[in-house]
């Protein structure tokens, strides 16, 4: 099952993990052999301290893009559940931004699907970050070439 949320509020990674374990039932799903999780959080910048990071998105397209990425992962690897949460709004250093969790019978598909989703999300989900610094400056975060390269490596085999 695929579940996508784009939201301002924080998420509880431990609770999300339990949901992946249980796969909709009240007890642990014994078809699950492995769960891979990635979370991203706001890093501070030593040379120019951050007041907060503003995350803007394209309502409607964001959810559609994340859903498509999750569906591509589910078509490519035999996963059980995929959960994606991405926050929007103003986030301070240390706060969680994104959660990607994948449960599967085996670890290789859980790892691959989780990393694939993060790499594709980074280059195709319509989010834009603007840094608001303690000194009053603000600047839009530039896309990184390395993210484009990481996304492109999935175009070949697994």
């Amino acid at each position: 099952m695929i579940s996508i949320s784009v939201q301002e509020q924080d998420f509880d990674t431990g609770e999300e993990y339990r949901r992946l374990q249980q796969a909709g039932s009240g007890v642990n799903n014994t078809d699950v052999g492995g769960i891979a999780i990635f979370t991203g959080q706001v890093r501070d910048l030593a040379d120019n301290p951050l007041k907060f990071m503003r995350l803007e998105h394209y309502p409607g397209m964001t959810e559609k893009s994340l859903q498509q990425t999750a569906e591509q992962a589910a078509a490519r690897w035999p996963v059980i559940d995929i959960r994606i949460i991405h926050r929007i709004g103003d986030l301070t250093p240390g706060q969680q931004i994104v959660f990607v969790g994948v449960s599967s019978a085996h670890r290789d598909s859980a790892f691959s699907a989780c990393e694939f989703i993060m790499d594709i999300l980074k280059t195709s989900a319509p989010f834009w970050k603007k840094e608001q610094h303690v000194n009053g400056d603000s600047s839009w975060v530039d896309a990184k070439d390395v993210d484009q390269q990481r996304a492109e490596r999935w175009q070949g085999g697994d």
Partner: protein
Amino acid sequence: MKVLFFGSLREQLGIGELNTALPDGVETVGQLLANLQAQGDEWKLALGSGNVLFAVNQDMVGENTPVSDSDEVALFPPVTGG
């Protein structure tokens, strides 16, 4: 048609949404971009970086993708989520 701007483009243009008729002679999103660039210096500056991405009806597309008057088109800089 509805044209949306996001991120630094929205900020530079000072506009998030534009409701307009499909301009004469515009058949693709690339042509729509060229048409918008010709609206004035501010438009040329914001949209002339060569680094503008397109979505038509909420799918990311290439510049040769056709557009019609009923489409929702979005122009934005490379995405930086995650």
